């Protein structure tokens, strides 16, 4: 008796699952496929969600990395490629086109007690690779520099290291798993230096100017603030994308998307 109940419960559950899956497939036949940069997951997630709510078209996102995304467009495996860097010349020559949708500005932060206000990109790289280990070498107090960063795989870490040219060479003292943790750690230690996406920097830490230019939406947009990188949509120059993909493309570059892009912590380009 008990066994029969058990079996029938399982049978009903299985039937329901199959039913739901099938129904789900039938409803959203229209999809836009995107593929590329892992750093863009938040932006694409936010845009895709808002777009789906408005138009009923699903946006799929395959987080593979900028290089893989660009390759996927070339090979026609996705409609829009996502890259967190500008296209190289040979990529443009091969018939690809880039459209910047946002800029990712990364603030270099220190404790408010630290007298340093400005460092150039080269010095920051030297600090992170362990060439400079004391604040007095860059004109600050005589105390050891405590380097705080994000865990490997994080988009912010990837962005920071690629901009400063310190990939896999950083001598981290702390590797924390969220922007908030980095800010808390830097706020709690006068010797610390860290990095965080500009949108989330609060008053508890001081954002350094880099090469004399303070980070802000304007300086990031005009390119004068150096610790930044573009988020681009990559498409083919002469083959038009599908109607729904074009709709998503237009939506992402429209005025309406500005707020959604800012909410994902980056500076909208349009």
């Amino acid at each position, binding site marked *: 008796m008990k066994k029969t109940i058990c079996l029938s419960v399982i049978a009903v559950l299985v039937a329901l699952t199959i039913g739901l899956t099938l129904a789900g497939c039938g409803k959203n036949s229209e999809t836009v496929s995107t593929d590329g940069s892992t750093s863009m997951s938040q932006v694409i997630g936010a845009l895709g969600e808002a777009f789906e709510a408005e138009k009923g078209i699903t946006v799929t996102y395959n987080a593979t990395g900028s290089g893989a995304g660009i390759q996927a467009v070339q090979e026609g495996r996705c409609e829009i490629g996502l890259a967190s860097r500008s296209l190289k010349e040979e990529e443009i020559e091969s018939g690809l086109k880039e459209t910047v949708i946002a800029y990712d500005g990364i603030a270099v932060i220190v404790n408010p007690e630290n007298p340093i206000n400005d460092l150039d990109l080269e010095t920051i790289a030297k600090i992170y690779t362990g060439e400079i280990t004391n604040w007095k070498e860059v004109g600050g107090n005589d105390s050891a520099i405590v380097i705080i960063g994000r865990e*490997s795989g994080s988009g912010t870490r990837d962005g920071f290291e690629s901009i400063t040219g310190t990939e896999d060479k950083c001598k981290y003292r702390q*590797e924390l798993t969220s922007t908030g943790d980095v800010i808390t*750690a830097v706020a*709690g230690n006068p010797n*610390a230096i860290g990095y965080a996406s500009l949108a989330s920097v609060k008053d508890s830490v001081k954002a350094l100017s880099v090469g004399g230019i303070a980070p802000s939406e304007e300086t990031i947009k005009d390119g004068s603030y150096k610790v930044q990188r573009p988020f681009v949509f990559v498409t083919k120059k002469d083959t038009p994308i599908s109607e729904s993909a074009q709709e998503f493309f237009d939506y992402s570059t429209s005025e309406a998307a500005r707020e959604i892009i800012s909410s994902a912590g980056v500076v909208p380009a349009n």
Partner: protein
Amino acid sequence: MILGLITVGSVLVISLYLVISGIPAIKEIGLINFLFGKEWASTADEPKYGILPFILTSVYGTCAAIVIGVPIGFFTAVYLSKIAGKKIRNIVETAVNLLAGIPSVVYGLVGMLVLVKGIRLVFNVPDGASFLAAVIVLTVMILPNIIKVSVTALDAVQKEYEDASLALGATPVETFFKISVPAAKSGIAAAVVLGVGRAIGEAMAVMMVAGNAANMPSLFESVRFLTTAVASEMAYSSPGSLQRKALFSIALVLFIFIMMINAVLNFVLKEKKGK
């Protein structure tokens, strides 16, 4: 019966899943390289997957927490069970229960804001996020387990034993340590093993205070535990990559550790029943 099956099923599924997803990376990296490699750089161009620093950190960290935590917990338990008045016992027991109920993320947060800063100022080191901070947090976290289980074991000692000892002229302190404690031996041992289990499996609190750089363990050095190694990189590792597979292998190693601790616990409890 069905509900029981769900529990057993979950255990089986988790064990099987861990073994199946943990073995490929070990095969690819090589068991010796994986377990005894000293360098971990999972996203470098030439990735290195050596988890010896994590294993040592987890083992040392757990041992240190036990070495500090067990005496404190044990003497507290003897005091609570045998010496303390009803009022004091009530107050302390309430506090211990409360301590047991605090979520680990809160331990981590307080540790990050108070302990890490305190260590930096007291020991005059550049940064307080260290092995020491993690050990202190773990010690506080395992205390409630040790105290509660030991108190229960000590309370269960038959009063006749103690009365007999006292009647023979032993002082109360002699009685407690020579009669009650040996009688409650296996219960106290179980308390210690439970503490080990809790300490080695803790991830969240430790992740927030230990710094998480993959260094060999050293008192003021930033270190990464087995648990935090899995937790901190899982979110961003791409599915199917060797990095993700290696994380599962770390989880498998941790799982084996915890199975061993459980086996010890079972053995200790059986011994108790056998007597």
